[in-house]
C-alpha cells in the first residue's frame, strides 16, 4: 500500500497506509505501551494502555486499532497521556496481588516494567482485593487467577495460533476469568504457549514455578533436541551441586526460526538431562559380567586399544560405527571421518527416519528447490503428503496455520489418516496407507482407479498453483519420491521438503553417516576428493548398514561396534547373543537397551550440554550453544578425539585446529562453553587463530564448510544466531544411476507430540503429560 505521512509528537513519520498506529510508532522508536496488543493475533483494544491523542478526535484513541492516515497528528507524550497510562496501571493493579517477591514472573513481568516506567508508584487502593485460589489445569499449566490482568493473549494464542481453543473467558465484570473450556482441565496440546505469552505471572508452568528467580539463571538460546523442526529454545540454567542445571525452557527471546512458537517438548522435555538414571561414570564390563566404574583415562585406554587391535589384526572392515540423530553436525562429521580414515571402515550408519538421499538425488543439480521451514509460513500454496505435522512437526503445523490465518495460504492434504490440519486445508483427501507411491505416480499422470474424483480435483488444483511447496513424510521413499519430484518439477515453481524425525536427522545424513555415501551425499566410489583430504586412507568400498552390522556380528565378523548416541538394540530388537563376540562401546546418557549389551559405556553430554551446529529436516543450519553442564560426562566430540588420540592418530589431521599451535587437551570446558565463539570474532578480525583445542567444534565446522557440498553458508550470520539454509543440492552426486535400487533403510519412529524416541522415556514430564492425555481421551471415549 502507498505510504502516508503523519506527525507523532512533532516528528514526521512515514508508514504504509493501513499500518496500525502503534506499529508505525514502534518502528521509529516511539514506544506505546500495551498489554493486549500482540503482533499476529486479533485486536482487542481491551487494556487501554495504548491510548493516544489524535487531533480532531473527541476522545483518546487506541493506537493498537487505529490505522495511520495521511496528515494524522498524534500526541503520545503529553500530560494527558501520561495520566491516562498511570491511571490505567492504578486500575489494573487494584486487584492484582503484589506478590511479586514470590511470583514466577517477578523480574520479567510486563506489568512490573510498565508500572516502573509509566507510574502509579504509590497505591491509592485500600479495599480488599478479589482473591481466588490457584488452579492446576494440566500437568504443565497452573493458573493464578488474581494475577491475571485479562489481556486475552492466552485465549487468542490458544484459539487463533494453536487452533486448539482450550481456553475461554467466563463470567463478566471484575469476575471475568480465563478458564478452560473443558471445565477444569485443558484439552489441548500442552504447548505452554499460553504461559509464554502471559505478560504477568498468571499462567505458570509446573516445571518452573517457585523454583528460582529469573535473574539467578543464565539464559542460553539453543536448539531443541527433540523433533526435526529445530526450534530455538531458551534454557534457563542455574548452578547446581554437579554442574549447571536446566531449570526452565521457554521461548524468551523469540529470535529463532520458530518465532513465537514452541511445543511441549521444546519447553518442558529438557528434564531428561536431570534424570536420576543419568550415567556419570565410565563403565567397563568385568569378567563376572557386571559393569564397574573406571576412570576416564582407563576407559579410553581400553577402548582405544581394542579399536587399534581390531583394525590392525582383523582389518578396518571388522569395525562398525553407528552415529546419532541428536548429535551435532561436527560430531557426526568427525565420527564418519575418524571411522573412514582412522578406523579404516565404511561400516557407518545412523537411525534413518526418512529418505533424504532419494530427494537429493531427484533434485540433483537443481538449485533452490529445497525449502526452508520458513517457506511453510509464507508459500502461497502448500501440499502436505503423508505425515501428521501437528503430532510430528509441530512448528511446521504452526507455520502452516499461521500462513492460512495471515496470508490465506491454500493447503492441500493427502493422507491415510484424519489429521488436525484438515481444519486449515483448502482440500483434503484420504488415500490408502499403502497407496502413497501409487498416489505420487497418479499425480504425475498415471491413472489409477484407487483414486477417485476428489483426487483428480486435488491434482488439478495443484497443477494450477503458480507456486507450490511440497512437504512429504516418510511414507514416501525411494522411487515414490522420484515420481513426486517429477510431478513437482513439472509445475512452474515448486520447492520440496522431506520430513525426518529428530533434531539432526538431516545433519546426520548431510554429514555422511552412511556406509555408501560421503558427506553431501557423494557416493563413496566417487569420493569427491575426500580421499586425499583424509590422508589417502579411506576405502572406496561401501560398508555395512546398521542391520548388516548386526548380521555380521552374528556371523562373528564384527570385532568392534562403536555406538555413539543411538539405541539400535531397542529399535531392532537385538539380543545379547548376537553381540557375544563383538566388543561393544556405547556412548550415551543412559543405560539404554544397547548400553546394556556393551562392554564399555561412556557417559556423554546431550545437545543442551554442548556447542556446535545442527541442521533441521528442512536444511536450516543453526547454532547450538552449551547451556547446561554435568560433572562426570564428556561430549561425544571430545570422546571421539580422545579415543583417536589414544589410538595414536594425528589429532591435527582429524581436527584442523590451532594452526601450528600444540593441542591443549585440557581446555575442553572453556571452548565447549562457547567462549571461543565470542573470542573468535575478535581473534578472526585480527587474523589470529581462535581454535586452540581439538575439542572446539568450530574447528570441525571449518572443515565442514570447506568440504561438505551445500554447506557454503555465511559463518558470521550463523554466529549471530540466524539460521542458514543449506542446499545440499546434489552437486556432489555425480552418477545418479548408482542410486537406482539403493535400499533406503528408513525406520520412521512415529513419535507423537508427547514422545521422543528413547530420549523421551527419560523425560518424566513428557511421560506425565502422555499419561494425562491418554486418560483424557479414555474419558472422552466413554
Amino acid at each position: 500500500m502507498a505510504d502516508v505521512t503523519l506527525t507523532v509528537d512533532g516528528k514526521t513519520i512515514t508508514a504504509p497506509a493501513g499500518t496500525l498506529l502503534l506499529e508505525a510508532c514502534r518502528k521509529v522508536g516511539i514506544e506505546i505501551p500495551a498489554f493486549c496488543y500482540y503482533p499476529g493475533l486479533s485486536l482487542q483494544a481491551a487494556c487501554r494502555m495504548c491510548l493516544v491523542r489524535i487531533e480532531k478526535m473527541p476522545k483518546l484513541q487506541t493506537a493498537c486499532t487505529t490505522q495511520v492516515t495521511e496528515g494524522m497528528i498524534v500526541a503520545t507524550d503529553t500530560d494527558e497521556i501520561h495520566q491516562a497510562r498511570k491511571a490505567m496501571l492504578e486500575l489494573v493493579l487494584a486487584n492484582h496481588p503484589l506478590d511479586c517477591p514470590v511470583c514466577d514472573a517477578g523480574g520479567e513481568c510486563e506489568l512490573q516494567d510498565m508500572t516502573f516506567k509509566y507510574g502509579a508508584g504509590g497505591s491509592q487502593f485500600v479495599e480488599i482485593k478479589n482473591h481466588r485460589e490457584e488452579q492446576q489445569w494440566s500437568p504443565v499449566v497452573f493458573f493464578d487467577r488474581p494475577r491475571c490482568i485479562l489481556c486475552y493473549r492466552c485465549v487468542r494464542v490458544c484459539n487463533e495460533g494453536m487452533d486448539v481453543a482450550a481456553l475461554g473467558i467466563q463470567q463478566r465484570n471484575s469476575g471475568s476469568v480465563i478458564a478452560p473450556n473443558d471445565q477444569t482441565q485443558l484439552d489441548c496440546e500442552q504447548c505452554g504457549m499460553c504461559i509464554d505469552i502471559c505478560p504477568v505471572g498468571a499462567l505458570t508452568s509446573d516445571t518452573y514455578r517457585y523454583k528460582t528467580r529469573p535473574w539467578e539463571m543464565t539464559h542460553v538460546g539453543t536448539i531443541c533436541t527433540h523433533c526435526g523442526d529445530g526450534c530455538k529454545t531458551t534454557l534457563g540454567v542455574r548452578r547446581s551441586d554437579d554442574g549447571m542445571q536446566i531449570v526452565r525452557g521457554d521461548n524468551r527471546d523469540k529470535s529463532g526460526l520458530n518465532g513465537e512458537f514452541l511445543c511441549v517438548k521444546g519447553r518442558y522435555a529438557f528434564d531428561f538431562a536431570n534424570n536420576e538414571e543419568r550415567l556419570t561414570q565410565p563403565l567397563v564390563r568385568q569378567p563376572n559380567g557386571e559393569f564397574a566404574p573406571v576412570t576416564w583415562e582407563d576407559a579410553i585406554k581400553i577402548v582405544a586399544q581394542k579399536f587399534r587391535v581390531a583394525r590392525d589384526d582383523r582389518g578396518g572392515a571388522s569395525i562398525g560405527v553407528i552415529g546419532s540423530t541428536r548429535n551435532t553436525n561436527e560430531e557426526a562429521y568427525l565420527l564418519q571421518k575418524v571411522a573412514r580414515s582412522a578406523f579404516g571402515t565404511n561400516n557407518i550408519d545412523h537411525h534413518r527416519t526418512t529418505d533424504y538421499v532419494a530427494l537429493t538425488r531427484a533434485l540433483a543439480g537443481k538449485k533452490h528447490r529445497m525449502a526452508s521451514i520458513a517457506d511453510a509460513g509464507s508459500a502461497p500454496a502448500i501440499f502436505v503428503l503423508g505425515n501428521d505435522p501437528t503430532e510430528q512437526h509441530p512448528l511446521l503445523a504452526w507455520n502452516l496455520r499461521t500462513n492460512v490465518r495471515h496470508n490465506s495460504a491454500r493447503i492441500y492434504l493427502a493422507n491415510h489418516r484424519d489429521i488436525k490440519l484438515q481444519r486449515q486445508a483448502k482440500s483434503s483427501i484420504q488415500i490408502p496407507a499403502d497407496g502413497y507411491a501409487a498416489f505420487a505416480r497418479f499425480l504425475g499422470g498415471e491413472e489409477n482407479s484407487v483414486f477417485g474424483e476428489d483426487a483428480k480435483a486435488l491434482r488439478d488444483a495443484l497443477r494450477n498453483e503458480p507456486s507450490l511447496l511440497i512437504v512429504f513424510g516418510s511414507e514416501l521413499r525411494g522411487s515414490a519420491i522420484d515420481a513426486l519430484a517429477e510431478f513437482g518439477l513439472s509445475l512452474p515453481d515448486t520447492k520440496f521438503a522431506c520430513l525426518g524425525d529428530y533434531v539432526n536427522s538431516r545433519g546426520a545424513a548431510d554429514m555422511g553417516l552412511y556406509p555408501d555415501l560421503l558427506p553431501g551425499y557423494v557416493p563413496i566410489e566417487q569420493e569427491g576428493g575426500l580421499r586425499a583430504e583424509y590422508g589417502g586412507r579411506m576405502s572406496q568400498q561401501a560398508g555395512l548398514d546398521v542391520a548388516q552390522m548386526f548380521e555380521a556380528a552374528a556371523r562373528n565378523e564384527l570385532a568392534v561396534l562403536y555406538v555413539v548416541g543411538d539405541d539400535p538394540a531397542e529399535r531392532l530388537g537385538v539380543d545379547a547373543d548376537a553381540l557375544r563376540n563383538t566388543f561393544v562401546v556405547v556412548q550415551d546418557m543412559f543405560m539404554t537397551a544397547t548400553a546394556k549389551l556393551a562392554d564399555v559405556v561412556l557417559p556423554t553430554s546431550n545437545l543442551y550440554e554442548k556447542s556446535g551446529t545442527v541442521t533441521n529436516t528442512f536444511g536450516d543450519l543453526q547454532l547450538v550453544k552449551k547451556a547446561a553442564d554435568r560433572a562426570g560426562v564428556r561430549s561425544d566430540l571430545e570422546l571421539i578425539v580422545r579415543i583417536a588420540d589414544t589410538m595414536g592418530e594425528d589429532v591435527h589431521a582429524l581436527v584442523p585446529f590451532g594452526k601450528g599451535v600444540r593441542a591443549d587437551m585440557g581446555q575442553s570446558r572453556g571452548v565447549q562453553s562457547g567462549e571461543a565463539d565470542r573470542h573468535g570474532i575478535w581473534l578472526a578480525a585480527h587474523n589470529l587463530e581462535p581454535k586452540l583445542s581439538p575439542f572446539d567444534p568450530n574447528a570441525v565446522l571449518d572443515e565442514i564448510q570447506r568440504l561438505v557440498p551445500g554447506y557454503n553458508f555465511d559463518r558470521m550470520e550463523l554466529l549471530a544466531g540466524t539460521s542458514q539454509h543449506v542446499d545440499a543440492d546434489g552437486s556432489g552426486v555425480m552418477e545418479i544411476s548408482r542410486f537406482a535400487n539403493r535400499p533406503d533403510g528408513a525406520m520412521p519412529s512415529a513419535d507423537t507430540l508427547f514422545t521422543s524416541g528413547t530420549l523421551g522415556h527419560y523425560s518424566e514430564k513428557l511421560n506425565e503429560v502422555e499419561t494425562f492425555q491418554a486418560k483424557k481421551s479414555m474419558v472422552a471415549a466413554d
Partner: protein
Amino acid sequence: MPRLVSHPDEVKVVSRRFGRGATNIDRYIELDGYKAVRQAIEKGPEWIIAEMKASNLRGRGGAGFPTGMKWSFVPKQSEKPKYVLVNGDESEPGTCKDHLIFLHDPHAVIEGCIVAGLAVGAKTGFIYLRGEYRYLLTIMEKAIADAYAKGFLGKGIFGSNFDFEIISQTGAGAYEVGEESALMESLEGKRGIPRIRPPFPAVVGLYGGPTVINNAETIASVSHILNMGGEAYAKIGSNRNGGTRLFCISGHAERPGVYELPMGYNLKKMIYEVAGGVRGGRQLKAVVPGGSSTPVLLPSEIDIGMDFDQVGKAGSMLGSGGVVVLDETVCMVEFALRTIQFYQHESCGWCIPCREGTDWLKKTLTRFHAGGGEAKDIDHIQYLAENMLGRTFCPLGDAAAMPTIAFVKKFRQEFEDHLNGKPCPYAKQQELTLA
C-alpha cells in the same frame, strides 16, 4: 399488566394504540396498521429515507443519532446480506418504554422493521428482546406469526415482489448487550462484548453484513412518521428534535408512569404538572433526566426543554428518557452506590478501566456509605471516575463515570456528612426504591 397513565399534555403518536387491543393483528389494521408499509412499497426507498430525514427523528436508544441519516449510510450494493436489527434490550435503569411497545403494539415494531428493510434493501430483520423481557416474547412471536399468516412477512410481502423475514430473539440478561455491537455479538451466539469500530454496523454489522440497528421506540415511530408525513412529525417536536418521546417518570413522583410528550417539553412542568409533583409534597432534591447513566440535575437546573440539545447544554443527557425524581429523603451517597452497583454488576469485564474502575468505585462507595470513609476518598472517587471517562472500550464506562462525577460535584456536602465514622445521616428517611 402495568397500569397506563395519561395527561392532557400528551401527544400520542407511538402510544396511540396502547391499551386498545392492537396486539391483535386485525385490530392493529383497523387502527391504521400496515398502511405505512404499503405506501413504502409503492414509493420506494428514496422516499422513505427522505421522509425519515424530514421527520428529524433521532435515535430513542439514548445517543440521539438522526435515524434517516443512519439509514442513508448503508451501502446500496453489498456482497453480504443486509440486516435490520431492532434493539429491544431496554436495560437502562429508569427506562421502561420499549416494554410497553412490545406489550401493546408489537405490530408497530414489525411494520417499522419492514419499512427499514425496504429503505436499506435488507431482506431479514431481527427483533432482539432483553433477556428479562422473555415473557414478552410470546406476544412478539404471535404477532410475527400473524403477520406471516397474512402475507405481510415472507415471500412477496403485501403482494409485492419484496421478501422480508423477521426473527425474534432474546438476550441472556446483560445490560452491555444494549450496546449495538455487543448486541450483534450476542445475536451471533457469542459473548456480549462490543466490537472495535470502525467498521461501523452500517458497513460491517451482523454476520459481517451492512446492518441498520435501531431502538424499538425509534422503529415503532417509523410507521407513524410515514402516515403523517415527516414534516408534520418534525413539527410536533422542538428544533432539530422531531416528534414525541416516551418519557418514563419514576421515583418520588406523585403519578409515575410512561407519558408521551413532545420533544423539548419542559422538565419542570413534566415533573410538577404531568407527573403531579413530588410525592407527598416533599422537597425535590435531584432529577436524573435520562436514565441512570445521565448526570444528575439539581432542582435549580430543571427548567429546561427535554430534547437532546437542551439537556446537553445543561450538562446532562436526554439519554433513554428515564426521568428519575429524587426527593429530600434520598441519601445521594447511597444513590451513587446503588448506581455504581448496577454498572459494576453489568460491566462486561472486557476493558480494564470499566472492569476495575466500577469494581473499585463500588468497594469504596460501599465502605464510604457504611461510615468508613476518609476525606481523601471523596476526591478519589471523583479521580477514579474521571480516569474512566472517555477511556473505556464502550460507553458503559462513561455511563458509570458520568453520574458519579456529577454526584460528587453536586452533592459533595452529603459525602462530607458521611465522614468521621458517622452513620448515614439520611438513613432514617430511606424510602427510595429503584424500578
